């Protein structure tokens, strides 16, 4: 079932928004092209919020190091992260962002647990 997580007006083009109401937290991204994507918010390498990362070419670069994750698939490109993060289906209806949460196990960094 889809979950309403925010309004499109809450998002800034080229940035991510962390949603803490979901555990583990997720990040909703609005690209400069106007596409909306959703990933788990926590980098799989170390506890850092991907919502604060750099969005470019349909990828987000972790704010701490240089691993980038594909916004549509969560796939990682290079170290230090080794594992991909979960991607969630996002859609916009009437200006509201809805997310279908992945049923896969979250991929959290060492030392970080689901609260």
């Amino acid at each position, binding site marked *: 079932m889809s979950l309403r997580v925010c309004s499109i007006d809450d998002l800034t083009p080229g*940035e991510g928004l962390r949603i803490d109401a979901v555990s583990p937290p997720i990040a909703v991204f609005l690209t400069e092209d106007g596409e909306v994507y959703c990933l788990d918010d926590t980098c799989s390498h170390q506890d*850092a*919020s991907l919502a*604060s*990362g*750099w969005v*470019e070419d349909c990828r987000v*670069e972790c*704010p*701490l190091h240089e691993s980038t994750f594909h916004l549509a698939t969560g796939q990682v490109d290079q*170290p*230090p992260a*080794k594992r991909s993060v979960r991607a969630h289906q996002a859609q916009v209806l009437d200006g509201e962002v809805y997310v279908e949460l992945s049923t896969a196990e979250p991929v959290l960094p*060492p*030392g970080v647990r689901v609260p």
Partner: protein
Amino acid sequence: MMTSGSAPQLSLDPDDRLLIIGAGLAGYHTARGARLNGHQGQITILGAEHRLAYDRPALSKAYLTGAVSEDDLALDDPDQPLDAQWVPGADVIALSAVPLGVHTLTGEFWAADAVVIATGAGARTLPQTNPDDEVARPYLLRSMDDAAALRATCLQGLGVAVVGGGFLALEAAATCTQRGAESVTVIAGEQHPGATRLGTPVGRALRSVHEAHGVRFASAARAVSVTSTTAGHTVHLADGSAVAADVAILACGAVPATGWLQGGPLHLSPAGAVLCDDFGATGIAGVWAAGDCAEWASQSKGLRPVGHWQEALEQAAVVAAHLTGAEPQPMQEPYFWSDQYDLRLQGAGRIAAADEVRVLEGSAETGDLLISYLRGGTEVGILGFNRLREVKRWRKQHQIRKAQTVAA
């Protein structure tokens, strides 16, 4: 800024043997980079420690608190292991230029077509007033063995003295506080830790953050020696004062791990670093150096920092590119980070070159300090407390892309 110059040496033939001395961040990433660039020949990595390559930053943080394990810090990906021969516990004693290779204490000679020296750095220590007392030595925080020993020590009810004012020392102080130490005293060698390198606003902020967690700071004098007995440690300061503690941690700098190169063919700096050009070439054909054991030309000139994780990573990529004839990634603006309590500090740019430090927003108390570094009125660096978005944006906006360097 990268200094210009022509590519110094011919790259390896596809089946040439690459020998890497040192199994840390720079050694691992040189090997990984060479493979990614298509090198087919044998890659051998001689490591001094009896474990595979691991990432060191967590040794003073999450590893020390017990939040992460040794396996979590492995650099290599078990699902996609690097195609390389790992030789742990290798005791390398000398470099040979002709024939090219290294000698080990056990009498072996490892011949190679290229040698990359990536032996890192060891902890700088203080003179011990009773060096023969093997029973109680201060803890160090360079290797996993060092950190494991400190991690195995219960700190409940104990007084801890941390010698050093850099991030390693401050992270250790934060971790010991979190682990229940009765008291933690930092002997930073300056009134506000980090003020000399990062500016007074940052030094003041760091001190206030630590004091809010109960950490005490000794006088601004430098630590000069330590006396250790089974009853505890006494750290002696240059102003005649002393700090007594049950546990002492030395985190007061690093020295290049190049003792085995002394008297050999390479040029070493007075501190012992292997001197290189900005490609990592040492001047001896086929011998390169990267990471904390090395000092590249722009580092010797003070244009780039020494000892940063990011620096080792990027140098390894440059060396790997030159070894394989690939186009090297340009070195980026220097970058570092530190985790202390619930603060994440990140700094980027030419902070050492700044002639003005400006507080843009926030404060230490609110955990959101944002600092700008300027030189001649132009911003050359940034530092943030929990300012991940701003620091990342700054780094990306200052990113040097490949095409730009070709045009330069």
